[in-house]
């Protein structure tokens, strides 16, 4: 169960906004976390709390393939990203590193900045605790659910190569 405060963003939040290139001479998650969402909101890293949730519009994570973007978000302690739609590479990167993401236009329209939101990831259920309204996101295909259940692509691959005893 995921529970956190919502931070709202608009459409087309791109990877340069999520983690500007000037910070890409490191791949240390803790360093990246300090600059998360910096060019979308320079004060975000300071004002967010662990377990908070990003709630965004269309095409979240568009632009570069840099995995540093979902890594920064996950390392900062964001517990999930809900968006109206995700850009393709960000979407697969999030699944691969085990950052929970859900797609739901209705949920995004129904959540305001500061609302308390609860997520049941396996069912795709999003509950706005503040307004007491519930929403549903489409479930992941079984193969992707396996990756997520394993904790990410690397864990999934390790199990395939070395067997379940890792």
């Amino acid at each position, binding site marked *: 169960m995921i529970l956190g405060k919502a931070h709202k963003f608009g459409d*087309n939040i*791109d990877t*340069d*906004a999520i983690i*500007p*290139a*000037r910070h*890409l*001479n*490191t*791949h240390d998650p803790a360093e990246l976390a300090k600059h998360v969402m910096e*060019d979308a909101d*320079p004060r975000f890293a300071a004002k967010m709390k662990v377990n908070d949730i990003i709630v965004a519009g*269309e*095409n979240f994570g*568009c*632009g*570069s*393939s*840099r*995995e*540093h973007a*979902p*890594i920064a978000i996950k390392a900062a302690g964001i517990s999930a990203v809900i968006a109206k*739609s995700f*850009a*393709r*590479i960000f979407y*697969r*990167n999030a699944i*691969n*590193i085990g950052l929970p993401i859900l797609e739901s236009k209705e949920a995004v329209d129904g959540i305001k900045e500061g609302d308390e939101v609860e997520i049941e990831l396996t069912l795709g259920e999003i509950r706005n605790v503040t307004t007491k309204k519930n929403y549903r996101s489409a479930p992941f*295909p079984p*193969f*992707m659910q396996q*990756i997520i259940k394993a904790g*990410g*692509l*690397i864990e999934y*691959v*390790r199990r*395939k*190569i*070395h067997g379940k005893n890792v």
Partner: protein
Amino acid sequence: MPMTLTEKILAAHCGRADVKPGELINARVDLVLGNDITAPPAIKEFERIGVDRVFDKDKVALVPDHFTPNKDIKSAEQVKMMREFARKYQITNFFEIGCVGIEHALLPELGLTLPGDLIIGADSHTCTYGALGAFSTGVGSTDMAAAMATGEVWLKVPETIKFIYNGKLNKWVEGKDLILYTIGNIGVDGARYMAMEFTGNAIKSLSMDQRFTMANMAIEAGGKNGIIEPDDITIRYVKEVIKRNNIKRAYTLYKSDADAKYSKVIEYKCGDIEPQVAFPSLPSNTKPISKVGNIKLDQVVIGSCTNGRIEDMRIAAKILKGKKKHKDLRVIILPATQRVVKQMIKEGIVDVFIDAQCAVSTPTCGPCLGGHMGVLAEGERALATTNRNFVGRMGHPKSEVYLSGVAVAAASAILGRIGSPEEL
């Protein structure tokens, strides 16, 4: 079952007679690549998998091109990590400074990307190689790590949008303008998750360099891949790089079936298309050159993986020959590979640029992503032949980037504002 070009390549790489859009497949890769920003996390993840070799030391390409020549200590450490990994696992295709070029121009030049290939790269502009009739797409570092270990990648078979470009290109219009026009028309998520198949007599008239330019920007419309059916122009290019580089590997020419199913067919009349300029801060914020107005510039960048090939340099040099850049701006030239640099020297193009007071860089991505070699200060405005203009792309979050083709960029360098070569 009738299939599109993209579907055929995917089917061939997962050992099936056919595939349908929406299916999840596990595909064999012909090449997996990464750069100095994306390879270090991939290397870290690869070591966690616990295998003692990469799946094929000839099918991994490590190209340090973004923050190189090492722009600071941290960047030097990232390249060092790539170098040591390449040595440890005997990676054939690691490119040191002096040999390296911008990845999406370098790898085709070396014959490492061929028609019919399935290529993944930890760089979003990996879609570039689709110009050769390959399936090529950008992925993250974790996908790169998994592919280096297993030689496979999980993919969802995309639907295809067929784009038809009819007629002849207007004067000064390049492949860059066709793709900018398209992105302006459908939006930055207009092709989200889709294959973009570029067809029509205008596409067939494009050189390989211009085809690479178009496929390069498929990602800017959200596309999974951009792809062009191989033809005589493709074959001539491929035969040349194969011969020059002594490539032993075979290639396969696929084409879409006449009755293949497309999710959408979008037709454009090239007679309607002027040179395009994308305004801040989305590649889709396009205007035709006649409607640009008076936009004064501080910097012009000509080059990059989008427009850094020899043909691009020739177009720019033809316009800049005998002229000087405007006194109030800076011009940075980013040739994409050492081979392009040599050719530029041979053809007197470097002389033209230096006489015009332009700075000619060694191959690097440099300022395209605000890294080095021409970063923007607060309030500055640049016009670039690159592929992205999000907020802060080339430097300060309060700087602005406009995108254009090479002819407009060269003319603007002289005018001091965004303008067409017609005005010179």
